[in-house]
């Protein structure tokens, strides 16, 4: 009897331990997902409301700041490359000249000269926030498209963060490799504005498609990774080697079409590229495109941020312009430019970055051998036991 009581106590203590481990703390509630799947705890309704309100305020604040800057900016008619405006500090003229020189070389590297849509880059140097209002966007890039401005100006608001603020202000040692990284940062910061500059305002169907997906396929016009060769949404989502379990955790956290495309399936690639193309997206005025803080986690195609840049390089300017301004549905226009079905071309493009992953159950060899050995052992024991038993 005493031993039964002891086991009851042990069972209750174990239950309490499990409850402490899995039940959410006070004020938060479970997302309702299985406890065996990794999940983050949701905040209370009040906190969610406050966060949503702060988010709206930040977006509105970003739009207002860009619209104000649009009025203020004076263009330098001598420069074809973007006009740069600094907010948060006054820079000495030689520092501004240095940064403009870097920008000029970035512009030339992108193959851009005089363009119909010009770019104004507002670099937000980091400054302390106010206690009365939410902290302004310090980690997200905002773009004001030419439709909202004078049709010929695309504006980008690029938060410099503490690192680049110190670099720009000359408070950090400027080694040659730092300038290379700074140029990469500037190039990545141009985002959709680089596409507007290179190819003008897209036609209605392409504009609606890209707006529906927050420009995830047109974030980077360059031919390298967004900040160096090994910094793409592919490398950030799928770290390590397929032999490690966390690689597969990364794979299966992605949308099904993205995973299918990684496996080299044209149907998956087609779905990943054309998501949002079927719906008629209403483009708001002012049209502010906000790039999310962890943008690589929301990519539907890896590395989708360079997809349209690669398409443009592959098909050439004329064919890409035909697609970009086409009145046809996106799939038809893109297939016409690629001269191939979208899914097939994209699957080949994907293979250029990652070897197609193998989907479906693939038990490790060691585990399969051990399981088979156990099964054989059990069968042997059962057979031996059965052979000794006699029915009378």
């Amino acid at each position, binding site marked *: 009897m005493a031993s039964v009581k002891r086991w009851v106590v042990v069972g209750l203590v174990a239950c309490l331990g499990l409850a402490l481990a899995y039940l959410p703390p006070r004020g938060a509630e479970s997302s309702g997902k299985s406890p065996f799947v990794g999940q983050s705890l949701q905040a209370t309704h009040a906190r969610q409301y406050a966060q949503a309100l702060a988010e709206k305020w930040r977006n509105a604040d970003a739009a207002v700041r860009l619209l104000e800057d649009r009025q203020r900016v004076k263009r330098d*008619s*001598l*420069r*074809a490359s973007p006009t740069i405006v600094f907010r948060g500090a006054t820079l000495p003229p030689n520092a501004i000249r240095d940064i403009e020189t870097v920008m000029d070389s970035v512009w030339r590297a992108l193959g851009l000269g*005089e363009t*119909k*849509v010009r770019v104004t880059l507002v670099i937000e140097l980091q400054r302390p926030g106010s206690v009365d209002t939410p902290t302004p966007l310090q980690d997200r890039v905002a773009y004001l498209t*030419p*439709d909202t401005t004078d*049709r*010929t100006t695309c504006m980008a608001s690029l938060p410099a963060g503490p690192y680049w603020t110190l670099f720009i202000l000359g408070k950090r040692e400027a080694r040659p490799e730092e300038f290379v990284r700074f140029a990469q940062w500037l190039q990545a910061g141009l985002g959709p504005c680089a596409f507007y500059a290179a*190819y*003008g*305002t*897209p*036609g*209605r169907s392409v504009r609606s498609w890209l707006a529906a997906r927050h420009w995830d396929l047109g974030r980077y016009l360059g031919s390298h990774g967004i900040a160096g060769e090994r910094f793409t949404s592919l490398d950030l989502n799928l770290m390590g080697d397929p032999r490690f379990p966390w690689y597969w955790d990364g794979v299966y956290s992605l949308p099904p079409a993205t995973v299918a495309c990684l496996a080299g399936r044209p149907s998956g690639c087609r779905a990943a590229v054309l998501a949002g193309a079927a719906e008629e997206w209403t483009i708001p005025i002012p049209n502010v495109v906000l790039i999310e803080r962890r943008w690589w986690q929301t990519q539907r195609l890896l590395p989708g941020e360079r997809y349209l840049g690669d398409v443009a390089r592959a098909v050439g300017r004329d064919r890409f*312009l*035909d697609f970009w*301004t086409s*009145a046809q549905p996106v799939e038809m226009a893109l297939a016409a430019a690629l001269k191939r079905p979208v899914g097939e071309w994209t699957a080949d493009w994907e293979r250029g970055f990652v070897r197609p992953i193998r989907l479906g159950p693939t038990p490790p060899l060691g585990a399969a051998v051990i399981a088979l050995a156990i099964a054989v052992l059990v069968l042997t024991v059962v057979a031996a036991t059965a052979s000794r038993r006699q029915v009378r």
Partner: protein
Amino acid sequence: MRTVATVLLAIVALPALLFGQRWEQQVQGRLARAIDVMQTSSRLSVVKRSGMLNTDEGASLQTPLVEGESYAILAVCDDDCTRLQLTLLSSSGSDIAKERNSESFPTLRFTAARTAVYGIRVVMEGCRWNPCWYAIAVVPLRKTPS
């Protein structure tokens, strides 16, 4: 002295000419040449307008036209424009004439039946690199001797 002043003026104006909006200059140049070709009664146009439009976008303007006078309504657009539509509208807003076959250089000739304010509408039907610049002019035509 005059030569020096001209050279100085050219040096000052050069960057603006070189780095200004070349598409704007392109359409203004085309419009000026088109007006030169017309048998106009005056080099001064009744109305002139320029701007830029994306594909499928349109712009309108109004102009007073005098009864019995003949006018040429000219529209031009830049090199990237493939089709521009030009429409003349009555004061009530109904179409009087439409030109959409001349691709990037539509022209309408019109003799006003009565003095009124007429409308002109341009639609950028094809532009390979948005936005495309356009310019419109309404010029009175010289009366042909009867």
